[in-house]
């Protein structure tokens, strides 16, 4: 016994070393799947933190006198810090990272019939830069003054001086560094994605046959390459304004907390808005385009039909991307933008409604009259459509300068972008998770739990964000830490929204708790032995090709476009099959 214990000890040590080596190997590997998991880990951390911050914000809005345990009452500047960090974490590190970089790396190469990304080392480097960016951002919580308070948009002159608030010194400098690094990582990742799509497609994967998910990733990457570097330029100029006494964004005679910031210099905050939103609006599409593509494919998959108007869907994806570059001014209608420019941007913004509507029509037409299977993946895709419509309908409203003038700084806008970008984006991510889980892990997530997750999530999403339209219309301003105790008629008006505020907060808590079945489902499924069949959804796209199970297999060849299902939906011809199924 003693001898065997002695013998097992080195064996155990060896196996431990091997496990550690394998883990470090996986962590530092340049294989696209490991990189994708790295990105997903980054955004998982960010989404948990970001949701907790939002719950703190909601609690404070509904019950402003409630002191945070171990901290005390939440001060107004702390509320703004919560707003800033919530927005930054969610927008950059969740909605940009997870759909584009995370699932892009996991799935995209297989979906185009490639075995790798074009530049694996650059890919891994980009992931590590993004991780570093997240670490730097989170470190802002712990520096003197705390995290920045100027929102994820960091408008100057608020962001141009450390005098402007507690987090605007070192905290904002860390924010700048983090976002600059993030943009660098995003650019590198986007270059990699673009080159992969352009050059590494399998034989026969002509671009009409590319799945719409790939089109979404491609367009989003193209937007990333164009937009991120403009953000870097803006950040650099803002840094110069903060530390090198320039005046790109600071007008002359700016007083901040009684201190004359810039005795001379004719900068303009409007310039920052132009540069920032030139990045910021494409950024929104980077977050949502992969989800749009995935929704098309998943709906077609479970409706057992081809995507309605496939080529038109390709065109609308590209058109949304192109128009997305030309609409940034609609974020600036009340910021001093020339009213003539406002009209031009309003027109280009409303033009986006055309391709977006075409997409919704295609989703509906694809599923219409079919008898779709409704597993959780399909439910989340349909939920994406629902949220996209609900959030999108307020888009043309806000694209009108006249209406935006009233609504811009109210919760109406918060409701709009949370429904169409945040919730739709997250539903796209859940759809991706349920849909591709069998592919990645060879296990299928539990369906009843998935359905519970979906119904609770969509209920929570609507219960949280629909009432925000009402409070916004009632005049609830954004970025206000407290709505009670304001004297005068405005205070009475805001006081009237308090019951709704409390409802929204409870609904947000419910939405948060609705994710617990999902987490349980994930852990439970991962602990189980593998079970799933090779292609449980009867999908037609290349990532499900059996050859891909063994990496570095013989070259994949693509024979047709995706979603070839027979008329009755019973048989299907995947993209990798050389001969169509014999006619029934």
């Amino acid at each position, binding site marked *: 016994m003693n001898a065997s214990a002695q013998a097992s000890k080195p064996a155990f040590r060896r196996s431990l070393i091997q496990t550690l080596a394998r883990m470090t190997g996986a962590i530092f590997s340049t294989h696209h799947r490991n990189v994708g998991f790295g990105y997903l880990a980054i955004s998982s951390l960010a989404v948990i933190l970001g949701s907790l911050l939002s719950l703190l914000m909601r609690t404070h809005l509904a019950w402003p006198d409630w002191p945070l345990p171990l901290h005390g009452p939440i001060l107004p500047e702390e509320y703004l810090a919560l707003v800033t960090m919530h927005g930054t974490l969610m927008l950059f590190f969740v909605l940009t990272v997870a759909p584009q970089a995370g699932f892009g790396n996991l799935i995209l190469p297989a979906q185009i019939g490639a075995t790798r990304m074009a530049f694996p080392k650059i890919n891994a480097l980009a992931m590590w830069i993004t991780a570093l960016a997240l670490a730097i951002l989170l470190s802002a919580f712990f520096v003197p003054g705390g995290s920045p308070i100027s929102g994820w948009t960091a408008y100057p002159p608020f962001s141009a001086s450390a005098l402007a608030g507690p987090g605007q010194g070192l905290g904002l400098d860390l924010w700048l560094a983090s976002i600059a690094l993030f943009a660098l990582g995003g650019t590198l990742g986007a270059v990699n994605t673009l080159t992969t799509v352009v050059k590494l497609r399998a034989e026969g994967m002509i671009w009409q046959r590319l799945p719409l998910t790939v089109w979404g990733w491609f367009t989003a990457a193209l937007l990333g390459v164009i937009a991120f570097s403009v953000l870097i330029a803006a950040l*650099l100029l803002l840094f110069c304004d903060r530390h090198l006494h320039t005046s790109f964004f600071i007008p002359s005679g700016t007083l901040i907390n009684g201190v004359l910031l810039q005795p001379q210099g004719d900068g303009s905050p409007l310039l920052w808005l132009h540069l920032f939103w030139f990045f910021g609006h494409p950024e929104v599409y980077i977050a949502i385009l992969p989800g749009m593509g995935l929704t098309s494919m998943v709906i077609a998959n479970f409706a057992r039909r081809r995507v309605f108007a496939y080529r038109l869907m390709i065109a609308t994806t590209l058109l949304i991307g192109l128009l997305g570059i030309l609409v940034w001014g609609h974020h600036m209608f009340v910021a001093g933008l020339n009213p003539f420019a406002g009209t031009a941007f309003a027109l280009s913004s409303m033009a986006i409604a055309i391709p977006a509507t075409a997409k919704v029509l295609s989703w509906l037409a694809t599923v219409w009259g079919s008898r779709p299977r409704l597993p959780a993946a399909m439910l989340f895709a349909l939920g994406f459509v629902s949220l996209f419509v609900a959030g999108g309908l307020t888009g043309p409203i806000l694209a009108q300068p006249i209406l935006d003038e009233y609504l811009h700084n109210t919760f109406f806008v918060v409701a709009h972008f949370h429904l169409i970008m945040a919730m739709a984006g997250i539903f796209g991510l859940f759809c991706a998770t349920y849909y591709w889980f069998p592919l990645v892990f060879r296990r299928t997530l539990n369906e009843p739990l998935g359905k519970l997750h979906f119904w609770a999530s969509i209920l929570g999403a609507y219960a949280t964000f629909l009432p925000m339209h009402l409070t916004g219309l009632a005049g609830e301003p954004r970025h206000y830490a407290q709505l009670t105790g304001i004297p005068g008629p405005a205070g009475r008006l805001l006081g009237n929204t308090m019951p709704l505020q409390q409802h929204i907060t409870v609904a947000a808590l419910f939405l948060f708790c609705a994710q617990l079945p999902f987490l349980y489902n994930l852990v439970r499924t991962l602990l189980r032995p593998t079970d799933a069949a090779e292609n449980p959804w009867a999908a037609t796209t290349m990532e499900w090709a059996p050859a891909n199970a063994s990496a570095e297999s013989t070259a994949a060849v693509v024979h047709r476009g995706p979603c070839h299902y027979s008329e009755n939906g019973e048989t299907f011809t995947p993209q990798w099959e050389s001969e169509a199924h014999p006619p029934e």
Partner: protein
Amino acid sequence: MPTTTTPPELDRRHDDLYEGDNGSGRRPPNDKRTGGNGDGDNWNDQPQGRRGPRERLNRARAGLFFGLFAIFMFFVAVGTTFFVRKANAHVDAYSHWVNDWLPTAIPSILWLNTAVLLLSSISAEFARRSMFRENDALDEWFGYGRPTSRRAAIWLSVTLLLGSVFLAGQWVAWNQLAAQHTYFRGNPSSHFFYILTAMHAIHLLLGVGALIAALIVLRRARQFATRQVFVDTTAWYWHAMGFLWILLFLLLEYGQ
């Protein structure tokens, strides 16, 4: 529907051996004596993306192309700021519009620097083309000596030298401005002068790094294709930075 296609340049034949590259550097070492098209090791049987050196080269070029989007958009953004900042003004106590922009006198050494950078671009192009000169490239591919790599290394070294001269020239220009008490902080126009030149210099330093990497690769890399890829992309990057400099120089010289 044909699922396999022959790369078009395999069908194109040139009489003049030295015309083989036709300036775009598309060619793999060669298709004539490698048993390429139909001689047993049929490239068409290989999956796209790994048919050979040409695919690697094209992949690297595509990556560089997309990366240049990002670099140029950065300078477009700064250029936009340049124009707006130049026009911006404020109302003074007497209700006059006062513009604080004073043009920075561009040191004339920048003309010299520009010429040097253009020369360096030419030598980089010589290096790039020499990697695709058919007979030598084939010799090298077969392993009979390294005539192309040696020639490319010489031209790349020339490029490296000229590039360093350019960077040193920029340094001299900054010192000349400092001697005239034109510092970064002086005026909006000098902010832009320093930011644009410094950012371009940083990108050019990346190019210098790429040149050094290419020189190392020329000595060390075993595959001829690797050497081709490094020299080719470095040269294209160098050209792009030269082009960018001309735009920036025109902006600084005539745009103020």
